């Protein structure tokens, strides 16, 4: 097949929605890197000033600027893989041009290595193998699942398989005998709240979009899943992609949106292909596109791949990235519900949030509410990894004791060791340890310990782990991913990393602690987005649970 010319690529995408990322990927894929010639063509073709385009391309970790860079191996040296010998694996692959990448979202598997369009996993260079995303472990609880309730059905990832297990019934019901208002009411009654981190009530978000004035409205599915220790959204998208599409179509119907985007992280190339396939199948079956199921409602979905930037999971940054702007977070207010994609009303929702909706539509709000324990409504996916016997994605009823998940469901720490600490919200919630391991898995309980459940990543550290080193790795991640927009986070994450690494900072314990606390307190109070607000939870919780280890670290 003849290679596409520069103008073929530009012409193909020029009038598409959110064209910059797909255009850049098309050149990246064609040439194996982004050459100066390619960037100049994009700049001319899309009318983006060349200096700004160049600057934004350097923002993304995975856009290679050197020939052959795209297909050179990238080895995950994320917080969990680092515990499993990722640096040795990286060294072994150096001769092939390997470079490190932050957590690639496969913490329940051996170390992932990304090569172009494929992810291989293995602990050593010669054991790298390509394989499917693991299904969630068999449900170990005595309650009931929602998001995962049908995910293990054979063929669920295909349209016929999905429909055989109740798929698109919820949409059909709402679109044929409900109204947008009733749809929002249903979601309100279910008490579904955002599963991407911030926990904002989903029905209220949709209502705000429905009520907002705008020429056109948008649904954005946040599939950036950049939080270290989180890999639940990939499990959903790989094994139950139509649930995500159905959730988006229902959201579009409720909000009055005509266009949806899935913003997918770069590190999930196989997922990209699977989503494209599912969209094509749904299109062909009349479940997407014009006049869905004869209702008069029309909706299309486009997948847009990111290029390696954790901050692009933050909704303002995500929207800037989609629009082809420099991916700094946006100032709030205004919020995306009124000023989102192209300044139009937009609902940004996490994959898990959206994938819950078809089940709620089919089985009712009361059913969903009742899945939680006590006052808690519904369920939450937890990505469990690190020093744990059975890592994987677990769907817990909100309110489940953490210890039940760790010990009864997942088998506790391996090799007869004790669990020393866990992280919450991936890394963003810092550590929990000691008596605080007795929390229940819900926001009120976890927040009362100064942390939060967030996206539901839980990384386990057994009693052999160096917690100062764990904290340093975590802070290094935040420093690597800080976008550089605001001073407290840009400088603060760097200074905290240096102090945890023992590279800089006062030699006296009291001064060391004051500096670290002062930086943390200013980051928490003044940072422009959630990254800078959350990062000091690492140092706060380290000093709270492990004061002796901090003392030893500073004094040696």
């Amino acid at each position, binding site marked *: 097949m003849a290679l596409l010319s520069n103008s073929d690529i530009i012409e193909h995408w020029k009038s598409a929605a959110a064209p910059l990322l797909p255009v850049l990927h098309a050149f990246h894929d064609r040439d194996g890197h982004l050459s100066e010639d390619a960037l100049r063509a994009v700049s001319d073709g899309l009318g983006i000033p060349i200096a700004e385009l160049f600057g934004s391309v350097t923002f993304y970790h995975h856009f290679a600027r050197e020939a052959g860079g795209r297909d050179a191996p990238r080895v995950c040296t994320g917080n969990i893989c680092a515990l499993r010998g990722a640096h040795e694996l990286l060294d072994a692959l150096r001769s092939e041009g390997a470079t490190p990448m932050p957590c690639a979202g496969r913490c329940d598997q051996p170390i992932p290595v990304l090569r172009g369009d494929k992810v291989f996993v293995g602990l050593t260079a010669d054991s790298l193998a390509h394989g499917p995303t693991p299904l969630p472990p068999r449900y170990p609880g005595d309650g009931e699942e929602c998001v995962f309730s049908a995910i293990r059905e054979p063929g669920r990832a295909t349209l016929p398989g999905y429909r055989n297990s109740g798929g698109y019934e919820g949409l059909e019901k709402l679109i044929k005998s409900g109204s947008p208002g009733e749809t929002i009411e249903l979601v309100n009654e279910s008490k579904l709240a955002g599963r991407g981190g911030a926990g904002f009530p989903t029905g209220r978000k949709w209502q705000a979009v429905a009520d907002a004035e705008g020429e056109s409205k948008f649904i954005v599915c946040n599939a950036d899943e950049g939080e270290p220790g989180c890999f639940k959204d990939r499990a959903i998208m790989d094994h139950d992609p139509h649930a995500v599409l159905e959730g988006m179509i229902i959201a579009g119907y409720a909000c009055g949106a005509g266009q949806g985007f899935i913003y997918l992280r770069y590190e999930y190339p196989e997922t990209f292909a699977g989503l494209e396939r599912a969209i094509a199948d749904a299109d062909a079956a009349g479940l997407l596109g014009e006049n869905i199921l004869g209702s008069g409602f029309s909706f299309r979905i486009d997948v847009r791949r990111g290029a390696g930037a954790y901050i692009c999971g933050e909704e303002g940054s995500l929207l800037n990235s989609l629009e082809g702007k420099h991916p700094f977070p946006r100032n709030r207010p205004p919020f995306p519900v009124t000023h989102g994609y192209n300044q139009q009303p937009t609902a940004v929702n996490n994959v898990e949030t959206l994938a819950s909706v078809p089940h709620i539509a089919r089985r009712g709000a009361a059913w969903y509410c009742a899945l939680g324990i006590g006052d808690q409504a519904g369920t939450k996916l937890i990505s469990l990894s690190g020093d744990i016997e059975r890592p994987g994605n677990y769907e817990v009823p909100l309110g489940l004791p953490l210890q039940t998940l760790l010990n009864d469901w997942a088998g506790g720490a391996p090799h007869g060791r004790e669990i020393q600490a866990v992280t919450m919200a991936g890394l963003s919630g810092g550590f929990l340890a000691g008596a605080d391991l007795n929390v229940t898995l819900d926001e009120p309980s976890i927040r009362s310990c100064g942390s939060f459940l967030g996206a539901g990543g839980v990384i386990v550290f057994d009693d052999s782990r160096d917690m100062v080193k764990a904290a340093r790795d975590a802070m290094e991640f935040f420093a690597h991913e800080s976008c550089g*927009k605001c*001073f407290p986070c840009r400088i603060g994450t760097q200074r905290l990393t240096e102090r945890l690494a023992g590279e800089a900072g006062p030699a006296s314990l009291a001064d060391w602690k004051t500096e670290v606390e002062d930086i943390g307190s200013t980051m928490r109070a003044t940072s422009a987005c959630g990254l800078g607000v959350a990062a000091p939870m690492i140092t706060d919780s380290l000093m709270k649970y492990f004061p002796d280890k901090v003392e030893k670290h500073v004094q040696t």
Partner: protein
Amino acid sequence: MIVDATQGRALRMTLDGEEVRFSDGETIYEVATRQHTPIPTLCYDPRLEPFGGCRMCVVEVEGARTPVASCTTPATAGMVVRTKNVALEKHRKTLLELVVSENREVDVDPLRGYASQEVATLVDEYGARTGRFQGQRSGTSNETDDNPFIKRDYDLCISCYRCVRVCAEQEGDHAIAVMNRGFQTQITTEFNGRLKDSACTFCGQCVQTCPTGALGDIKAMRAEPLPGELKKTRTICPYCGVGCSVDLLTKGERLVGVQPAMDGPANKGALCIKGQFAFDFVHHEERLKTPLVRGDDGELHEASWDEALDRAADGFRRAREEHGRYSIYGVASGRAPHEAAYTMQKFIRAGFGTNYIDNCSRA
């Protein structure tokens, strides 16, 4: 008469315990500034879209969990705002200590640029030279950009992106941008090349908005070692008809630089390369200091003013008599003072009764 700053403004909020009025669309920072309540800033330039990067301007809003950036947050009716308290002042000091820790130095000569003293001034106001938060420094000075106008001393850069934003929003050139992220951010041009190979027009606006002197006016900086006090004299740029207000920088009898007037009604802080940088002719060694008259030998000879003026008058008179008054056309130099330009047009209009007068630069 004292004009009530709140006149015509319908909405009310509480600012540091006092009820103030404002109109829809104003930010907290704008309201506070109007009320003469100073709020410190580093990434703010009133001509640009608020950016919200430095976080120095954070204020407390009743009901909000954390302080908010006053530069980006719209004022709303009934809002209760506190611009100063112990916690806010401590955050501001910490931010400044962090800024000091990332830079090679804080103190730079004011000749570097209009806003170059902003960081040093705030650092002193907050007593932030504590030496805390030591660590790696950010930004790398660009020593290889061999342009004659703009020093790119990014060791002093604090990533406020005022330069990038002024270039895009005011100048419309988009010549510079932000490269990398986090602590590694760096101001760049296309493919990190030289300014003269980029879309830069050397208007100097990035230099003048830079709050640290990381961008320096190379021509003005030549005068750093000169003794004497730096004086500013307000005038209008003579080069073209726009009429940009400028402040001429002098040390003693020497013109050492030009800065745009931020309150210039025609330019609001903008200049072009000529107004900003093209003043070397003033003290140029080849500049004529006495009249020259061509002798019979065909060479130019120094002459007295009387001699020269008589000679010029003779020439004009002859030209008018032989060819008529429309044969004479005056072109004033953009490098002459306004007074000379005025006299020149008067000379043509009154002297010859024509409008045959122009200026060399009609940008």
